[in-house]
């Protein structure tokens, strides 16, 4: 098992803004923004947009599905990390609103949150001290 690091020092680098198109997955879309911009680690600085439907994870491994369209993303936080196997992994959490404005929250499940109209995201590169 990899050593768990509690404190990681570093600095902020570049800032990227992206618009992701409909039917792309939210979580993997953010990972692809990092690929496009050459970021290996990043924090979400701002994000808003809409999803066709939203799928949030639960602590017992179930899926909380919010039916749209559209489900509005009203709060989003998260990060992208480069994994030891060379892949990028985004972990995003947030609050969404259904077509009646009712809100739900949790972690976005990768692959199950297709964008409806648009998704705007601002990422700030994180440069860990080596």
């Amino acid at each position: 098992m990899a050593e768990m690091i509690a404190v990681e020092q570093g600095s902020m680098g570049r800032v990227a803004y992206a618009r992701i198109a409909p039917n792309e997955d939210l979580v993997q879309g953010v990972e692809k923004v990092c690929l496009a911009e050459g970021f290996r680690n990043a924090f979400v600085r701002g994000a808003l947009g809409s999803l066709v439907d939203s799928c949030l994870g639960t602590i017992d491994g179930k899926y909380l599905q919010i039916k749209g369209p559209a489900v509005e993303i009203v709060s989003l936080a998260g990060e992208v990390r480069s994994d030891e196997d060379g892949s990028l992994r985004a972990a995003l959490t947030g609050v969404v609103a259904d077509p009646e404005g009712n809100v739900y929250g949790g972690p976005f499940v990768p692959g199950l949150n297709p964008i409806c109209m648009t998704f705007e995201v601002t990422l700030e590169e994180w440069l860990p001290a080596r």
Partner: protein
Amino acid sequence: MTKRVVTTGVPRPRTLIHPGRFNPVRIQSHHSSKGRHVRLALLPGVSLFDGLVKPLAEIGITSASTTILGGYFEGLQYCVAPPDQQRQAVIAYSKPITAGHTYMIFGNATLGKGMNGLPLVHCHAAIRTESGEVKGGHILTDTCIVGRDPIPVLVTSLDEFELRQAYDPETNIPLLQPYKETTNG
């Protein structure tokens, strides 16, 4: 109708058909070489739109991503996004919903330039309305009036490129998109 379902099986994501031609470019992105941040206070009595746009314009920022860190509004209106009954697009914003004296729990607002060349703010937020319900949606920033206490905002300036609203043929609506040119000072 319930919009919330809990399942043990993996739900199948839906691919919607938009009115326009599919654009093979799925991600439009640009970057600044360095982050520039501003701590802004939305002042009592001003609209959310003016409270963001004017002070940032004075320091040369016309494209930015902002996080609204919570606070009270004397009045606030928002929209939700149901399917478009006119079928011009997949969804269309509802008529404005008046939330009254509202606490904004958390909001994100993007500042860019509209198709008319004037400043544009696109804002989504989670709110607690005057009736006590927690709701979320698209905030009408020009009708939201800051309450008696200033509301803090963290601004990330988008330099070396700019955000402009442009017609998007695929979705058949105007959308904010990044372009290489910039006017941020």
